[in-house]
């Protein structure tokens, strides 16, 4: 078990290292970097100023010097400084993380609950009216791009309600939890719904097919044959087996969301990691982009390790591979 975890961890570190290489290749010596110094210096700056800036940012050094410096700083937990305000990237990231996490923490239980419950109902009553309704909803939300759902929710639940005097939700903005828990909650309901409805669709479909598979297995038939109540068969015997792919998907989705709430944050104007990244991209503020990409990749890697570890804990066969 320990060896398995160690191996999994080593793989995670390897993956992270490769991510830094790719990030570095794209941004530092990629096509964008040449213009950074000029952009920073301003349009009419003399060449000497441009060169000075380039020198300060190590942009005039060979790539391996730049990469060595980059990794060295990274290993010290230093993601560099923002080009424009000299703010440490770590603190910029730290500002965004609570907002992104708020989004995930609220949305994840919603989609998990909706998805698993509807999926289980559908699997237990296939071809029933409700099954068809759930399946249709799932397919529809599954097909809905996040930003389309977001803007439509704003249009219908915020704007239409507000102009009719029911101001349930604010249109955008973020209130920290510590400042006012109620406003925090109120402000996040629509973003949560946006994220959760799209994700729940996947879970409805996944739970339905996984559960249908399990209900067809011999041991479930055996459990029924020996006279166990249907409730017990479904909740104790079948669900446990059907949950495996769902838990895997859930772990990976949560990890991916750290860098995947870009659209939701953009739609609702929430200054989380994704929003910050988009604005950094507009300004070509490389250190900030890189910092966020690395944090988000790390979240995926960590989530994968956690899922694998849980998996190995639950199902010893996995450790063989």
């Amino acid at each position: 078990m320990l060896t398995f975890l160690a191996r999994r961890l080593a793989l995670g570190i390897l993956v992270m290292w490769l991510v830094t290489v790719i990030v570095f290749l794209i941004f530092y010596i990629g096509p964008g970097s040449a213009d950074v110094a000029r952009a920073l210096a301003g349009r009419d700056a003399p060449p000497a100023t441009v060169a000075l800036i380039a020198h300060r940012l190590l942009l005039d050094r060979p790539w391996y010097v730049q990469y060595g410096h980059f990794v060295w700083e990274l290993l010290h937990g230093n993601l560099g400084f923002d080009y424009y305000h000299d703010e440490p990237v770590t603190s910029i990231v730290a500002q965004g993380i609570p907002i992104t996490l708020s989004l995930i923490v609220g949305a994840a239980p919603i989609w998990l609950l909706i998805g698993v419950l509807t999926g289980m109902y559908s699997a237990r009553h296939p071809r029933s009216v409700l099954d068809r309704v759930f399946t249709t909803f799932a397919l529809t939300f599954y097909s809905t791009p996040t930003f389309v759902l977001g803007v439509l929710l704003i249009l219908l639940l915020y704007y239409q309600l507000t102009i009719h005097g029911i101001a349930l939700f604010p249109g955008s903005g973020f209130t920290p939890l510590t400042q006012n828990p109620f406003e925090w909650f109120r402000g996040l309901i629509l973003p949560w719904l946006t994220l959760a409805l799209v994700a729940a669709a996947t879970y409805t479909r996944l739970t339905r097919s996984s559960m249908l598979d399990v209900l067809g297995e011999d041991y479930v038939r055996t459990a029924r044959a020996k006279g166990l109540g249907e409730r017990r068969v479904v909740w104790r015997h079948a669900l446990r087996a059907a949950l495996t792919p769902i838990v895997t998907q859930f772990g990976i989705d949560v990890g991916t969301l750290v860098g995947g709430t870009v659209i939701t944050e953009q739609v609702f104007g929430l200054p989380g990691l994704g929003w910050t990244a988009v604005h950094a991209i507009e300004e070509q503020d490389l250190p900030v982009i890189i910092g966020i990409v690395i944090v988000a990749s790390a979240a995926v890697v960590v989530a994968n390790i956690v899922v694998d570890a849980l998996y190995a804990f639950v199902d010893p066969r996995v450790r063989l591979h």
Partner: protein
Amino acid sequence: MTPPGASAPSELGTQTEDPHLQSAPATARSIVGRSPWRLAFERFRRDRLSLVALGVIVVIVLVAIFAPLIAKGTGHGVYTQYPTAGLTPAGLPRPPNAVFPLGTDDLGRTLLVRIAYGARVSLLVGVLATLLTVSIGAALGLVAGYFGRGVDTLIARAVDVMLSIPFLLFAIALASVVSVTPLHLGPFTLGKGVPIVVLVIGIFSWATVARIVRGQVIAIRNREYIEAARALGASSWRIIVFDVLPNVLPTIIVYATLLIPVSIVAEAALSYLGVGIPPPTADWGSMIADAQSYYQQAWWFLTFPSLALLTTTLAFNILGDGVRDAIDPRGTAFKA
């Protein structure tokens, strides 16, 4: 050499073995044999919902192809701004009316024609990005699965890395880097527009395909018919193309069908974020982004492009489900 016991049939049993198959009158239908593809097609033909979805897609494709005709018919160009007829005196979009059936946008352009032209971008990027994704993914998956060993380890690590990269962040970063400084690849220059969007989507989506294909190939690799092909002296490439590929093709096709709507959404999302297809090209994603500033004044500006996008992805997803059910009725293709 002793003949077998008297009880065993001593003749070469062309008749005894299966008289029905052997001596049945040779009608063309029974001789040709129904290929797995034909069986899948016949299953698909009975799936009414998928047929409707296919019909919707055909309509969307026709709209995309004949978008210039729609422009001509309405008399409104896709880029033409109508400052008086298309905007209210306050400079806001006009609601649907006899002149502009779906209303106008913030610059006084006709939404109907722009949505029709938007279908071109969506379909083009959706199909091209899917082709690119599937080509890269299938090729790497086949090679990794068939050859195993070092090649497999290398590709499997690459898949791990690609799956750890936050797609959207990387995609917008890469797309923006390239759009500021065009990328020169030999004679080709990649700047803003369809090629770079296709490339970005392809680069960041192949890993899943590779993983699925690799799993299937590993399941097939040790079948006896692969060994039989080796015993005949067939080269590895011949075996991959003629023996392995036909058996993973159903999975690849199912996955590709389901990938088209994903690619369409990815393109729309990139454009929504302002790093996809640059204006003034008509694009659903950037139309929705523009419309978001006017949702209080012009619901049609937001709603119609959204509906167009939603209808398209929904139709493709229904079609994809139908294709999967037809090709892989027992649902085994993705279990590998």
